[in-house]
């Protein structure tokens, strides 16, 4: 498995660049990922999505369905894609440190 060093922190990641361990998540991780996810500057809206994803994951052990993410944050799906250009699954979950969603093909 690949490891990433950033600002003195070390992260283990899988081939899609997701954190291997949720516990490894730190603010440095968010900063590290944002460029590759096409995000220029982090806003409170980004943080709101990230915080909700983490809360939900801690409670339920899985990522929420997109519809629930939309409902709770009040952001329309389009807006979520504006915030996270690679989408809620690939972009937002990765930044929040959630394991890779086992998306259906």
């Amino acid at each position, binding site marked *: 498995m690949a490891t990433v060093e950033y600002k003195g922190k070390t992260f283990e990641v899988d*081939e899609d660049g997701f954190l291997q361990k949720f516990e490894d998540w730190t603010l440095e991780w968010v900063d590290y990922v944002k460029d590759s996810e096409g995000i220029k500057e982090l806003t409170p809206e980004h943080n709101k999505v990230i915080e909700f994803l983490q809360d939900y994951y801690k409670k339920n052990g899985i990522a929420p369905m997109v519809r629930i993410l939309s409902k709770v944050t009040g952001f329309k*799906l389009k807006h979520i894609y504006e915030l996270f250009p690679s989408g809620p699954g690939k972009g937002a979950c990765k930044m929040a440190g959630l394991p890779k969603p086992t998306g259906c093909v």
Partner: protein
Amino acid sequence: MAKHQTPLLDQLETGPWPSFVSDIKQEAAHRAANPDGVDYQIPVDCPSDLLGVLELSFKDKETHWKHGGIVGVFGYGGGVIGRYCDQPEMFPGVAHFHTVRLAQPSGKYYTADYLRGIMDIWDLRGSGLTNMHGSTGDIVLLGTTTPQLEEIFFDVTHKMNTDLGGSGGNLRTPADCLGQSRCEFACYDTQDLCHTLTNDYQDELHRPAFPYKFKFKFDGCPNGCVASIARSDFSVIGTWKSDIRIDQDRVKAYVAGEFKPGGGSHAGRDWGKFDIVKEVVDRCPTGCMSYDGAKLSIDNANCTRCMHCINTMPAAVKIGEETGASILLGAKAPILDGAQMSSLLVPFVVVEKPYDEIKEVIENIWDWWMEEGKNRERVGETMKRLSFQKLLEVTNIKAMPQHVKEPRSNPYIFFKEEEVPGGFEHDEAAYRQRHMR
């Protein structure tokens, strides 16, 4: 000399049919020779290593693809499926082997130029291997690496005016039969409906928000060339309301052997003289046809539009003039409890631009399914779980005999009290005194 020895795969080439193994070998040889001097952007060995990893899988009786993978392009949540090999050192050419889905044109009409254009991009940026077409209908480009994805997306959209298809919990690339462009049986313009809905539902196609996949398929008539009834959540099947048109002179011509039955499609063997009673009348599944030696009659009220008589004698028997479509919901391949065909929801709808009536049905279903559907539950499963009545309620469609699977042998429809004029009284306590549980 092949990079990997593939004795097990080689056996597959000995069968009577064209073999994908031969195809991949051909591409492997072509890439190695590189006669056009292509500046390959992914390993030239990709097809060879694909053969190698498959051979190993056959030997181990286990797949060597890892489960899942999340890759994509900015702005879209679907269209690319991540694939990684779990033996990247042995098979570096397929360490990444992502699939790119492209939306196929309605009716799958191509020009040679277009196909060359797609292949120029794919030879340069991918494995050169394709699957024309995937079971949803997409053009499937097999095998590329993550850094190539945005490049491919740019090239296909800018040079080929072609978009990515769907994947994940979204609207999958809609597919249709070629319809009125070539087929006299088509009851509506499948290509226009397919194309229009594809454009109208771009968000649903590219940004997954559904509980699971959702497929549209459009068949121009009940012959079902895209098998919408078996393979799509939302099946639109051409049908007609008025009587089947019969040209009695041509019926006679078929009987006299002037026309070949079935357009001559069973010519491989001598079936003897055409027998209209045996081959058409007696084959009518509802027994609604008769032939008195001179005249063919159809009791149209009992015709279920199976297409048999029309397929057998297309020159003499034609679909009715008042055409439209039926909408059926909920087909899926076996996941939870077996394969399921779509159920009839709208017996007849006129198919006319801008298709508002059809879109209303679609959007009502989506609203309901997105609210009620569980994660990874196809709409057909939601329908079964919450009942067909519920589906009728959310789509504002009244229950009617056509909704009953076998109305003649199973005439039960559940009515709520307020739906029956005058209502009815039911005293549960008194009833239970007479009838034990």
